[in-house]
């Protein structure tokens, strides 16, 4: 046993994968046990088999792929707009202390405003169309990205900045050609994190006033008490999250191979 629980002792990659899969297997087995034994009624929780069946039906009878595409589109749209606003602003805040002094209190405050609480207001302002959905994700992501990027850029190693100055760089060169590339890997890492959060916002946005999307499907399934469809919808969100996270990580590794691991 002490062999397994030596602190920080690495595990082989084979064992890591086995353990990871085992985690899923245990949960699915528990799920299966409580539903198949009748401990929990199907009305409240569909079993694994029924859920898969519901998923099959969703894709092949109800055009669920369209819903998935709509939701992915919303997440990416809102996330990209937030990135386009927040990354430049965050860089400016990180690099210039006066810009930071102006925006930081404001954004620190705004960050704690829950994006979902804006939904009623946004519906009032933007209706129930795409603009409202994108706005929710935008609000949920933009302040977080901004603050995190500012911290990253502000934390650029002083030696790099000073070396650049002694090599003749001016302020503009230092920001664009030293602070920016130095911060880039961590900025991408931040974006990966926030993209994960954007998924939670989009579903909330789709629970209200939507006519398509994964969130809409889940609400729709609730009307028919179809717990299989609901669980399948949640499951699909998890899978997409996992895949996008993986792709992001690969992209980072590819773009920033120079970064020491």
């Amino acid at each position, binding site marked *: 046993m002490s062999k397994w629980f030596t602190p920080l002792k690495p595990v082989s990659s084979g064992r890591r994968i086995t353990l990871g899969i085992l985690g899923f297997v245990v949960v699915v087995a528990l799920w299966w046990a409580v539903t198949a034994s009748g401990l929990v009624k199907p009305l409240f929780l569909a079993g694994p088999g029924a859920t898969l069946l519901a998923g099959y039906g969703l894709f092949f009878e109800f055009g669920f792929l369209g819903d998935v595409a709509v939701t992915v589109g919303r997440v990416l749209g809102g996330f990209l707009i937030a990135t386009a606003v927040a990354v430049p602003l965050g860089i400016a805040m990180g690099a210039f202390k006066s810009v930071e002094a102006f925006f930081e209190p404001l954004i620190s405050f705004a960050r704690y405003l829950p994006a979902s609480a804006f939904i009623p207001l946004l519906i009032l302002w933007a209706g129930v169309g795409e603009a409202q959905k994108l706005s929710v994700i935008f609000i949920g992501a933009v302040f977080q990205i901004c603050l995190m990027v500012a911290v990253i850029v502000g934390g650029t190693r002083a030696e790099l900045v000073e070396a650049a100055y*002694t*090599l003749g*760089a001016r302020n503009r*060169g230092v920001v664009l050609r030293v602070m920016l590339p*130095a911060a880039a890997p961590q900025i991408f890492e931040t974006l990966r994190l926030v993209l994960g959060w954007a998924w939670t916002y989009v579903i909330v946005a789709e629970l209200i006033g939507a006519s398509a999307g994964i969130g809409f499907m889940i609400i729709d399934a609730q009307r028919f008490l179809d717990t299989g469809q609901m669980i399948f919808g949640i499951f699909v969100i998890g899978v997409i999250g996992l895949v996008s996270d993986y792709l992001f990580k690969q992209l980072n590794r590819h773009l920033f191979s120079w*970064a*020491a691991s």
Partner: protein
Amino acid sequence: MSSLSIEGVGRVFPPARRGGADTVALQPTDLQVADNDFITILGPSGCGKSTLLRIVAGLDQPSSGRVLMDGQPVGGPGPDRGMVFQSYSLFPWMTVRDNICFGLREKGLPKPQQKEISDYFLERVGLRQFADHFPKTLSGGMKQRTALARALANDPKVLLLDEPFGALDHQTRALMQELLLGIWESDQKTVLFVTHDIEEAIFLANRVVVMTARPGRIKCDIPIDMPHPRTYKVKTTQEFADHKARLTEEIRVETIRADAMAVSA
């Protein structure tokens, strides 16, 4: 007239907390540096060596006095004063060659000239085969050779080095000393070099400046007249041993004083 002149330069840091005492990092210091001088600065830890070098580089402002380059007061950092730091300061997203070209690029030099100059310095520091490597794949000695080449490629009037070999092992360090001295002997350059290592200070310099314990000031300025070109063999000569004995004594006294101050503080 000397190219670099340090006139009454002192530095006092304000207290970190309200109500604390000021830190006098450097007492008003004078130093005249002639063209192509190689001056090494020795002193106990915390005596203000880095502070002095940073002020000359323009990275810090003196509380009193001024630094003149060719008669002009130094306002901020500039490419006429290149610096090599103890901690590795290469740009990790750039290859060795791009690091060396950084200053040239900022200056707007055309690409072919950048290549020519970087080729020369890659050769000079023995990193031709590593031109396309990223810093993370280099050893400590290679990183500092790149940093040296990067500073030299800008052709600064004064080269400032703050314990550049401090993190290297003894053998690598000895090779780096010979490399730097070889470049200085052939290319001629004004150099200020901060170190803790007495042998290093004697081997490289034509003047060794010793500073007192904090708050530092210059205690003595010792000419080293051993002939050039020097190889590692001078380290075993009687003249070298005499210099070493003298400097060891000077530094010892200051280190004991620094220690006593640390205890009483």
